[in-house]
Every structure is written in structure tokens, then in C-alpha cells.
């Protein structure tokens, strides 16, 4: 190939745009042709000079910060809908669930603690030689006995026609709060009924039935009072007595 043809490719050679076979062929030619070799060198030098001279202008730090902030702000804004629509509600739900879980766990622990204490009271009372301070099967005797002894009053159910019988009652304390402790009998089982002011009773967190140490529990709040029914009978019997107490007038 004549030199004129090769010189038409010298720019592409300097720019690295020749194919490998062309590069090799031009390399062979330049080893034999000093003029083409010099011209190729001149083009490479010119290219390098332009590269150096062309890197001339630098943005100011203020302008760089301005554009960077602008792009990042728009990026944040662009992803804002994602946060608003998906992530924020998800986080709120997570926080709510975690809080609820924490509350429920705390309430359960508190309830367990109260039930254990009541179970102890129940057992200790039954083991005592004088389990009740007022011995009577008559609710009209037992109820007045508590007047002046505890800071509230309550209704007791009529037990006629039921399997339950009232044995009596005593004053008791739960977390330093005075309350009524009534003992009922069902067949050969004794069942304790504890009544405390709802605001002062420590088991105000949850209501419902449960089993602790094989004792069956039922508790509920009614008319500002919290009732606990504890016994070693089945849940149905506890529930039956609880219903009588709830319906008492």
C-alpha cells in the first residue's frame, strides 16, 4: 500500500481506532517508512497536546455542591413516594406491632404474677385453721360484714338452686390494696373469689380465663371492681360461678 493510503489512516492509528490487522500492517510499514513514522508520531504528539490543553476548566466548589445537592435532593424527592406509600406505613405497623407485643407480654407477665399471688392466697387461706373471718352461708350476713373493712361494697349472688354454697369471707390484700376474699364450695372443692377496686388492683391489664399451677382462673372488671375466681375445679364450674357473680343484684 502506498504511503498516501497509509497517511489517511494515521489519525485513526493515533486514536486507536484501527483494527488489529491494520495496526500490524501499519506498524510494518512504519518500520520501513521514516516519513510515515514521523507523521504518525506528530499526530500522537498533537493528540496528547490537545488532551493536556483541553483539560482546562474546573467547576467551582460552590457550583459542584449546588449541582450535587440538587441531584441528591431530587433523588430523595423521587424516592419520597416510596417511603411515604410503603416504608413509612410498614415502619409504623412494625412499631405498633412491637409496642403491642411489648404491652401484651408485659400484661401477661403482670397477670401471671397476680394469678400466682392469688393462688398463694387461695392455698394459704384454705390451709389456715381459720380460713374465713365471717362464717356464714348467707350472703346477707357476709356482705354487711365487709362494711367498714374495705373501701367498697359489692353484690353477692343468690345461690339457691345451684351447686355452689358460700362458706364465708375475710379481708385480704393484694399489692397492699384491701379487698374481699370469699370462699365458695362446689361439691368438695373450695373456690376463692377475690374482689378489689379495679383502679387499684394490679391485674387490670387483661381479663379472661387462664390456668396457673393447675388452678383455674377467671377475672373480669365490673362496676369499678375487679373480680378474680380461683379454684381447682374445671373451667366450666369457674365460669358458672363467675356468671352468678356477674349477674348478682
Amino acid at each position, binding site marked *: 500500500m502506498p504511503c498516501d493510503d497509509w497517511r489517511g489512516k494515521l*489519525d*485513526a492509528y493515533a*486514536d486507536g*481506532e484501527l483494527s488489529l490487522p491494520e495496526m500490524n500492517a501499519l506498524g510494518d510499514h512504519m518500520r520501513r517508512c521514516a516519513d510515515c513514522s*514521523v507523521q504518525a*508520531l*506528530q*499526530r500522537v*504528539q*498533537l*493528540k*496528547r*497536546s*490537545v*488532551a*493536556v*490543553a*483541553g*483539560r*482546562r*476548566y*474546573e*467547576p467551582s466548589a460552590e*457550583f*459542584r455542591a*449546588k*449541582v*450535587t445537592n*440538587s*441531584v*441528591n435532593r*431530587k*433523588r430523595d424527592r*423521587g*424516592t419520597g413516594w416510596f417511603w411515604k406509600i410503603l416504608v413509612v406505613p410498614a415502619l409504623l405497623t412494625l412499631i405498633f406491632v412491637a409496642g403491642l407485643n411489648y404491652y401484651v407480654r408485659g400484661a401477661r407477665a403482670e397477670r401471671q404474677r397476680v394469678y400466682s399471688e392469688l393462688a398463694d392466697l387461695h392455698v394459704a387461706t384454705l390451709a389456715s385453721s381459720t380460713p374465713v373471718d365471717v362464717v356464714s352461708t348467707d350472703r346477707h350476713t357476709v356482705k354487711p360484714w365487709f362494711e367498714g373493712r374495705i373501701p367498697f361494697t359489692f353484690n353477692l349472688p343468690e345461690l339457691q338452686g345451684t351447686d355452689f354454697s358460700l362458706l364465708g369471707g375475710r379481708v385480704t390484700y393484694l399489692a397492699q390494696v384491701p379487698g374481699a376474699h370469699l370462699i365458695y364450695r362446689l361439691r368438695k372443692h373450695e373456690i376463692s373469689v377475690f374482689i378489689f377496686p379495679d383502679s387499684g388492683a394490679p391485674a387490670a391489664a387483661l381479663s379472661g380465663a387462664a390456668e396457673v399451677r393447675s388452678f383455674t382462673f377467671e377475672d373480669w372488671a365490673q362496676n369499678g371492681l375487679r373480680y378474680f375466681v380461683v379454684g381447682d375445679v374445671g373451667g366450666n364450674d369457674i365460669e358458672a360461678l363467675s356468671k352468678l357473680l356477674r349477674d348478682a343484684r
Partner: protein
Amino acid sequence: MEVPDPRLPAANFADLALPLFDQLYNFAHWLTQDRHEAEDLVQETFAKGLRGFQSFQPGTNFRAWMFRILRNTFLTSRTGLKSTVPLEDDASETIPSGDLSPEDVLVEQANRDAVRQALNELSVPFREILLLCDVEEMSYEEIAQVLTIPPGTVMSRLHRARKALRTRLLEKSPGGVNAVR
């Protein structure tokens, strides 16, 4: 330039575009010859790029895409419209010959300012193609994407731009072209 994944979110625009900030600014300043205009141009380029990033074609060159936005924005600006002149046919200029070539003059002078001045004096189409090729080290294919011209035109325009640059450099050599001759 790495091609962004088509599933990339728009948030990645900043990650791709901000590294090009210095190059885009340098190119903008060369085109506008004015700092404030260059800043406006770059800012508008980023704004357009961000707005249009969702329409960016995956598999194409992001750098070329940004440079094309900048150049098109420049061409529609007041300064850009003024610069839209027919290409000089510098290829027809006679390149002086002699013992002292333009490159020899350049090497001897080692005068960067002379090259910068010569670049400034070139028409925008010649200046931009030299900057894209020699400063940004873009391939002919990339340049073709930025300027939206065929690769063959890139080659011929580059050739003419370099000839024009060499002529300007010779004129700036001590004694001018006549002295070189």
C-alpha cells in the same frame, strides 16, 4: 462506560451522572467560553438528564447520552445558536511543509496556551469533536452518538479539525506560517 441495568431505579442517576460532572463542565466551558453560561448549561443538562433518565435506553452509552444532552442544550442556547455556522472547509487549506512541522513547533514551544488559543479559535464543530476525541478519549462510535452523525463523518471531521488546529498553531509560531516555510 458501564451500561446501567434497565431495572436500575431513577435514584441511580446521581451515581452515574455525578462522576461525569467535571468532564461535562470542562466541555461546557469550552463550548460557551463563559463560566456562568457553562454553569447554566451543566445545571440544565443535569436537570434534563434526571427528568429523562427513565427514558434512557439501556444498552446505550450513558456518558454519550449526557454529553449529547449537554451539546443539544448548548446548540439551542443563545450562545449555541450564534455558534451555528457552516463548517469551514479547512481540509482545503494548504498545510505548510518544511523542516519545521507544526508538531515540531508545538514540541519546541511546549506552549499549552497556544494550543488552548488555537482550540478557542476553531469553530464549535471542530472544537467539540477534538475535545470529545482527545480530551474525553471517546471512541468514534461514542462521538457519533454524542454528535448524532455517522462514524464515517466523525473520521472526516476529526481529520479536518486537526488540520485546522495545526494551521492555527503554525500561524502562532514565531514568524508565522511564512517563517515556517
